[in-house]
């Protein structure tokens, strides 16, 4: 059912704009172990099974495990080979996954080399990733709110934040969203005094009392009202997506809407709630048997919920989203 919907959604999109660049979807969110790789791998499979060409990128620099979620052994070629110029073209490090139409760029094994990637290397990497000849790229981001992760997230056309219904996860996700927005402003702002204000805001213990984007806008508007309005406009265009993982109860299902509302009210950022993934034993069972969930247990409730999310992503891709960061890099 959902697969048919997906296939229908796909056709006009590909035909409309043949020369358009590849869409990038990024999956992030503060903490580790909240289902980023699970979602990336299975979203990838659902898109590929809907006859779209997909390349997954394990951008978890240092903690890569996307291949495991796909039921694969660690591939020989990895992102690190491209970053360190052992491979000439990025296409050279794409490996087959056993699913037709689904390729994988595995995460770098040499932790140090990639985690300390330089700014210019990062830009080159992102631009090369976008040039890969495919329909959709899905990036699995590492945990934490390092500038690298934030930039990967912002460079994507759709950025998905995952969280699980636990206070620590919520806290991390909120921090991630807030940091991503400040980071975006930091890229957009050319004036030094204002960059300083943004840097201040990024420090959660800053002395200026800026705790939310609202506060930041207020402070900036006092210095320069026009700029304040501009910042507010940026706030309205920044629209991350939300997926809740490990949902166990009806209350948890509603949590997505609640989190989205709280985020809107407090941070002033419109967090677009896509859907949830049930808490289910099949997740760890398939992980244990090192198989991809969507292939091993296609009829499970979890598989169905992932298909629902896939449809939501496809619907949003049809609206031709475009990364703000892409335009200025």
């Amino acid at each position, binding site marked *: 059912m959902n697969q048919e919907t997906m296939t229908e959604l796909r056709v006009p999109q590909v035909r409309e704009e043949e020369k358009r660049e590849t869409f990038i979807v990024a999956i992030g969110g503060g903490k580790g172990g909240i289902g980023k790789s699970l979602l990336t791998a299975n979203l990838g499979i659902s898109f590929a099974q809907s006859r779209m060409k997909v390349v997954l990128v394990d951008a978890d620099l240092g903690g890569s495990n996307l291949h495991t979620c796909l039921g694969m052994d660690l591939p020989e070629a990895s992102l690190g080979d491209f970053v360190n110029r052992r491979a000439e073209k990025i296409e050279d490090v794409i490996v087959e996954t056993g699913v037709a139409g689904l390729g994988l760029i595995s995460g770098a094994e040499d932790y140090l080399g990639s985690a300390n990637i330089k700014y210019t290397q990062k830009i080159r990497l992102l631009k090369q990733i976008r040039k890969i000849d495919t329909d959709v790229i899905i990036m699995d981001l590492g945990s934490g709110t390092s500038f690298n992760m934030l930039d990967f997230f912002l460079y994507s056309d759709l950025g998905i934040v995952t969280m699980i219904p636990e206070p620590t996860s919520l806290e991390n996700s909120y921090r991630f969203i807030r940091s991503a927005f400040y980071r975006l402003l930091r890229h957009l702002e050319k004036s030094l005094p204002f960059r300083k204000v943004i840097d201040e805001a990024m420090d959660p213990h800053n002395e200026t009392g800026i705790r939310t984007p609202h506060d930041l806008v207020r402070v900036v508007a006092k210095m320069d009202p026009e700029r304040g309005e501009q910042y507010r406009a940026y706030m309205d265009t920044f629209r991350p997506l939300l997926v809740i993982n490990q949902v166990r109860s009806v209350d948890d299902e509603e949590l997505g809407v*609640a*989190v989205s509302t709280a985020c809107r009210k407090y941070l002033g950022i419109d967090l677009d709630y896509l859907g949830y993934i049930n808490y289910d034993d099949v997740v760890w069972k398939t992980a244990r048997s090192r198989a991809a969930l969507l292939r091993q247990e296609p009829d499970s409730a979890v598989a169905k919920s992932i298909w629902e999310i896939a449809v939501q992503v496809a619907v949003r891709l049809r609206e031709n989203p475009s990364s703000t960061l892409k335009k200025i890099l």
Partner: protein
Amino acid sequence: MRDFREQNFYELLEVKPHVSQPDLERSYQRLKRFFGSRSVATYALFQPDELVLLRRRIEDAYRILSDPERRQRYNSELERMDGKLELAGTAAEDSAVDEAEAEAQPASIGESHYTLHEAGNVFRRLTDEARQNIERKAGTQEGRGEAEDLAAGVFDSLANKEGQAGNDLEPDAIDQNIPVESEEVATPEAEQTAAAESDLEPVDELPAEADTEAGDDLEPLESDESGPDELEVLGEEDLSAQGDEKVAAEEKPILPPMPEINEQTIYNGELLRQAREAKGFSLEKLADKTKISIYFLRNLENEVFDDLPALVYVRGYLKFIAQLLGLDKEATVKGLTERINQASNK
């Protein structure tokens, strides 16, 4: 997107201005759950005091919007502050419930189509009716006093810029409006009587003149752009005059004295309260006259500044309040704004 402190009641409850009662209820119940003490969604975001404030604002919003009459008054208030409430253009989305509601209140101006421009047209129509009424009544000696009441009623509606003011034009409904002219003509005793009984001495001024004035004053309403500033242009004289008349007419002489205004006067919430009490206005009365919610008025007087609309609206409020209370507008706005800023910088 605005901070929840700056959101209007519709934005707070995350509903469209023409929302139906059941949808409003649903949204309110949901928000109550989301921001209730058992919700995890607010973890790591809101400070405890911010949550208390947000919950209070949600309650306030629901209390006002769930009551059709208060909601309508609130719409007018919003409109006066915003220039126009974004109600127009969404008619297509109106549910059957909304239509049923609109039908149930044929006397009111359809909420969903109520723009300031239309309000201007309504006033025009009202004054046309008033003019005819006045002319008709002025034809007879006995009718003159009533005719002036009618003219004053038009002034009053204009000052309040209320679309629903049509009802006020009914002679019975006129809230003791005393024409400004009576001051010059009537003796103090006559004034008292006249005010109390709405039974004015016939005066020499032609009612038609009052009519013309009303017509002139109407003009600014034709414009779509309107804010608090225009408000003061509209009601300038008759408002303060009316305020004075009111005191003379209705109140027993036991009123606290008007606070002394000199160079040392600090324009603060307390001064607003003293001035209001000197005028013999209760908070309710002031709220009714200004159509500013009593909640905000009380917050202004008590200097609870963290729960007010955006400053730009507050300035509009202050101008209007100062005018009604006979305080210096500039000084009031300046003084209170400073206090608000001081409080927020702490």
